[in-house]
């Protein structure tokens, strides 16, 4: 049942570091996080790693395994061939703190920049009525466990540090989409700010965010592209722009 596993684990901090070879036993059915825990308990007592639920629900144990952004708790050891060396590194889009732990504060800063839901005035708790079909789109995005793998894999910031200030990243595009599709949200400038402040136009829909999402949220198809289309409605479609002007005028009259 057991097999001997060869690993390369990145150890270090923001100044130095490198891959270290480790050999460790693995049992049937174990995931990479189990292996890291075994290494921790038997060989490297101070190996830093974030984790919480170990069930794919909290999004803490994000790291890169054989170069792919993944949750260590959802990555079966058995999915790698017997003779393959498994390379484990911290997320490469964020500054490293120690070993497999990175500084993900970028994401919390971006979260702060998006206005939260704004309910209509006069609606009291218990009064809202929403149909299931109207909340379903937003519900998909609220499945997000904030593992930030999409943020990590997105080349806009992974490969271009300087874009971090002007680009919110896939996790926050689904947040904006969630709010823009919320049946009761009253804030009407979310499309405009998505494009002008949060960098929606930087996304070139190459879909890596969707590929790595452990919750299988269809980030690109269901959030980013619909938001891009909504932005076109408002900013780039002369006919719709004209239409909205005329309608507005009718509203005033």
């Amino acid at each position, binding site marked *: 049942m057991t097999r001997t596993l060869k690993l390369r684990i990145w150890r270090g*901090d923001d100044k130095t570091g490198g891959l270290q070879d480790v050999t460790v036993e693995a*049992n*049937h*059915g*174990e*995931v990479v996080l*189990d292996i890291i825990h075994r290494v*921790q*308990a038997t060989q490297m*007592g*101070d*190996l*830093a*790693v*974030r*984790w*919480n*639920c*170990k*069930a*794919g*629900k*909290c*999004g*803490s144990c994000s790291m890169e395994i054989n170069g792919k952004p993944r949750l260590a708790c*959802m990555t*079966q050891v058995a999915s790698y061939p017997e003779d393959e060396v498994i390379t484990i590194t911290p997320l490469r889009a964020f500054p490293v*703190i*120690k*070993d497999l*732990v990175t500084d*993900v504060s970028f994401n*919390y800063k971006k*979260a*702060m920049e998006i*206005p*939260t*839901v704004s*309910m209509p005035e006069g*609606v009291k*708790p*218990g009064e*809202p*009525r*929403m*149909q*299931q079909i109207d*909340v379903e789109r*937003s*519900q998909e995005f*609220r*499945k*997000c*466990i*904030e593992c930030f793998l999409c943020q990590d894999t997105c080349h806009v910031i992974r490969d271009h540090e300087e874009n971090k200030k002007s680009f919110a990243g896939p996790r926050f595009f689904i947040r904006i989409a969630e*709010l823009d599709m*919320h049946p009761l949200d009253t804030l009407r400038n979310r499309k405009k700010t998505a494009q002008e402040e949060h960098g929606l136009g930087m996304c070139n829909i190459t879909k890596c965010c969707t590929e790595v999402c452990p919750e*299988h949220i269809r980030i690109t198809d269901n959030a980013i592209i619909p938001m891009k289309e909504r932005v076109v409605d408002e900013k780039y479609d002369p006919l719709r722009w004209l239409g909205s002007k005329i309608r507005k005028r009718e509203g005033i009259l």
Partner: protein
Amino acid sequence: MANLEKYSYDVVVIGAGGAGLRAAVEARDAGLSVAIVCKSLFGKAHTVMAEGGAAASMGNVNDNDNWMVHFRDTMRGGKFLNHFRMAELHAKEAPDRIWELEMWGALFDRTKEGKISQRNFGGHEYPRLAHVGDRTGLELIRTMQQRIVALQQKDLRETGDAEKNLKVFAEVTITEILKENGKVAGAYGYRRESGEEILFEAPAVVIATGGVGKTFKITSNSWEGTGDGHALALKAGANLVDMEFLQFHPTGMVWPLSVKGILVTESVRGEGGILTNSLGERFMFKYIPDVFKDKYADNEEEADRWYVDQDNNRRPPELLPRDEVARAINSEVKAGRGTEHGGVFLDVSKRLSAEIIKKRLPSMWHQFYELAGVDITKEAMEVGPTCHYVMGGVEVEPDTAAAVGVDGLFAAGEVAGGMHGSNRLGGNSLTDLLVFGRRAGMGAVEYVKSHGANPVSDATISKAAARIEAPFARTGGENAYSLHQELQEITHNLVGIIRTGEELKEAIVKIADIRKRSANISVTGDRKFNPGFHLAFDLDNMLLVAESTAKSALLREESRGGHTRDDFPGMNSTWRQVNHISSFDGEQVSIKAQPLPVLPKELFDLFDIHELEKYMTPAEIAKGGSN
């Protein structure tokens, strides 16, 4: 310490799960400055693991529901050991707390009329659980997290600084509640990232640290569930109540080994999942206790009919309270009718179509498919009991959540005791967090307004700092990881789901031994994000909790809810009148019996007298509640 990071707040909340965040929102809304301290990143708290839903008698699906029915269910589920006032407040306030979440952006599943949908759950008479698929806890934590952000955005607009009056200190461990002049003065701890120490001065501290599951070997809890708040409160001079009551969730995964203990939501049974043993027998019919005979179906036909007609049929026994189901599974496995991996079968594939399963139980499908290679739309799951929740906890005043015995200390959520009695109903936890999180916030506000600041002295600081330095000063001492494993073996084998007096005595001796050895833990590496170092502190907390549980369990000579004694199998009405209070003198935990508050007449009268006769002594019945 020259480079000690120092902060001063009105209120410090320890724990950023549902209860902690709700307390923080309440205190900030009242104009106070609040620090939220948590061991993980913001938004990762164990609340995300709650799957089924949040129980609140909104009556959206069945309008016969109201707070009185919910109150009755809660008391019944807790075998009448609950603090009546907590159960009452909870039942009354839960709907408001859910509706408030919706105003903050939560998107619950809907009924046809567009109201919040509610689902059935074990022990609840009506469909009562507001839910979002099977990820309700995630919805709750995210909504609270976003509410915190909303308040920070407001502060940013008004003061130019988002974090001026409400700041989250993520990845910080609190090692001590500081006191001056007998009252709470703040909290001391260290940043997990850097190992650097951090001081919070605050007249009020709210403990909302959750549970103790990591004390046990098989648990649904994450690494954070190490009883920190329980231990911090004990050390600060507060009491724990009824620590013998631990809920073993009947359905945890049992295979493969690496996922053993991970929760399988009760909604699987709520949606029609049935339990069978290796003989294919639907065994739950054999385990309906007398007190529930009139509420649960005793034959398959009626149980199956219930799913379509709930008014004219009794509920299937799979939906009995969790303690009953866990014990039943345990008995089946012990009798040799378990599965290959020591569980029983839970099957939902025969009743629901693949499409509906994936829609209603998406994360379960996902979890089994990815972690166990089992497609639950086609095959049965293998499940067995897993340590899930601690009913016991800090003894508090129900209305304010103030910890009894320590001025300025508050506790809410799983870390507080009393609300759930000897057994918690599924779904009551999430609303517990919200109802008592808010009340703890209100309590803290009230307290701060009437007491004002209580500065921390240098002597107190140096004492707290010395404790953190200690494990680095030693070399060649004990390994925290192995001590933790030893503790888990002891609790699993001797303080687990079925207990005996002899085993508990043995456990108490062994736990004391580990505690002695743990004083000699040494740590390799430096302070920077060092898990071995972190575990040394967590372990100390777990040892106190384990001691408190074992000692309380030894004293209670009956079986009730989350406490089963092989040598005292029955429930005993005399024991119902007793709470076990743990306190700590710096050396060891001692337990004393304390009379349970008597049910007031207006609540007493909510029950059928024949039902109460099953739980209460004739003298109590004759008295008819207090006036």
